[in-house]
């Protein structure tokens, strides 16, 4: 019996889709069978981030309307053993699927997969309700900005009111140098406000942009610090105790400063 995890945030553009793709790929790398559901009908992205866009034949709406079997709508990611995607329809809207149909799909997928990850659309309307319908656990993605934290708070309230108790927090795009200057909410500040279990802290990383554009999950890029953070999140989801990455700004040594001075940087 698998576990259904919905990844949501309230605010758009904080990294839900990137997190979903990478956690999915990470779980697959750890030998789990995973299916990713894109619940963002009409604005699908997850397929693009995974580089599977050109392989879509059937989508979630086709399944719901009975045009195809659920199994035939799943796209297998050839790079990751055990990773599947159930894409969203691009030409329809959120109301093409009802929460009941979503629950039905989830329970069916739960039978044959270890993890079902649902990429929730931004907002708290129909798409959000669909994505949350069958969830066992929820991961909230936020950035250290007041607007994102405010929306995350709202979403946590809605999630808790549905009786879902397993709610984890991922803080994305953290910039330690700004926190040190006092220009950004620190991880502690965000945790203070939201008061839920912290699952991961992802530092701001250019590799994310590169990997998203290439359609390759960043977890498989060893040099990327965001990739490491996402790998750690995956392990924490699997129940391992992993310490958080040290994101302190390293104090510059005397020679490093000198070298910088002479190299004209």
């Amino acid at each position, binding site marked *: 019996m698998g576990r259904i995890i919905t990844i949501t945030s309230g605010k758009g553009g904080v990294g839900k889709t990137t997190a979903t793709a990478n956690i999915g790929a990470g779980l697959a790398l750890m030998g789990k069978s995973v299916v990713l559901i894109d619940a963002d009908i009409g604005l699908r992205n997850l397929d693009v981030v995974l580089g599977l866009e050109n392989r879509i034949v059937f989508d979630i709406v086709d399944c719901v309307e009975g045009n195809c079997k659920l199994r035939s709508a799943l796209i297998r990611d050839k790079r990751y053993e055990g990773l599947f995607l159930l894409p969203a329809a691009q030409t329809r809207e959120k109301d093409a699927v009802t929460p009941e149909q979503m629950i039905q799909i989830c329970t069916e997928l739960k039978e044959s997969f270890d993890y079902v990850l649902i990429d929730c659309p931004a907002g708290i309307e129909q798409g959000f309700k669909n994505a949350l319908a069958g969830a066992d656990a929820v991961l909230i993605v936020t950035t250290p900005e007041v607007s994102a934290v405010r929306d995350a708070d*709202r979403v946590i*309230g*809605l999630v808790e009111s549905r009786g879902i108790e397993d709610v984890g927090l991922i803080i994305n795009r953290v910039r330690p140098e700004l926190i040190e200057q006092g220009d950004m909410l620190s991880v502690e500040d965000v945790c203070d406000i939201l008061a839920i279990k912290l699952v991961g802290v992802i530092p701001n990383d250019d590799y994310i942009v590169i990997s998203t554009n290439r359609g390759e999950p960043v977890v498989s890029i060893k040099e990327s610090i965001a990739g490491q953070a996402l790998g750690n999140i995956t392990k924490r989801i699997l129940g391992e105790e992993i310490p958080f990455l040290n994101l302190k700004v390293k104090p510059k040594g005397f020679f490093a400063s000198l070298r910088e001075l002479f190299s004209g940087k």
Partner: protein
Amino acid sequence: MATEALSVKGDKQGIKLIINATFSLTEILNELKAKLLQNPAFFEGAAIKLESNTLELLSKEEYDIITEYLQQSFQDISVSDYRQYAVVDSEEKEEVVPTKFMMGTIRSGQHLKYPGNLIILGDVNGGAQIEADGNICVMGVVRGTVHAGFAGDDRAFISCKRFEAPQAQIRIASLIVRAEQDDKTENTAGLEIAHIENETIVVFSKE
């Protein structure tokens, strides 16, 4: 003591009639009659004070009936106050305001409204709104909008660990203020209380 409707005690000031108001008025009067018949000379010309020994109190009417009965029985008797609070109580009843406890943090978009006191065992986050006809007591930090005395009671107060500037908005009765950053006062005890003073909302912190 509590099994009797009435007991008599004498002290320097005079005679004290201690009434157990859980008994009915007729029972009390019967007991009183019996006590008076037993030893009428004892009561003659005395200053009698009525008291209650239970939480139950006599109403003003009942008090008047007993006083009248005593004064009819003896010529020069003086009956003094049936303990003051009983009389006050019958005029201005102490009202018990309903109080609600809320477990956990109140988050953005959540709206609480209650016709009494509210006690929140958690924070009130930005974007949350709380309205109570009575007082509000927040065990955590207030970042949202809190409104005490919603129905217009300007004696209502709001207490919390800290009003976080600049998000928090404090409303009492018909007044509104925003939380202000104040570096001068040190909130060491972790308690801030907002109430109305001279028609403005004042927040003071316990040091």
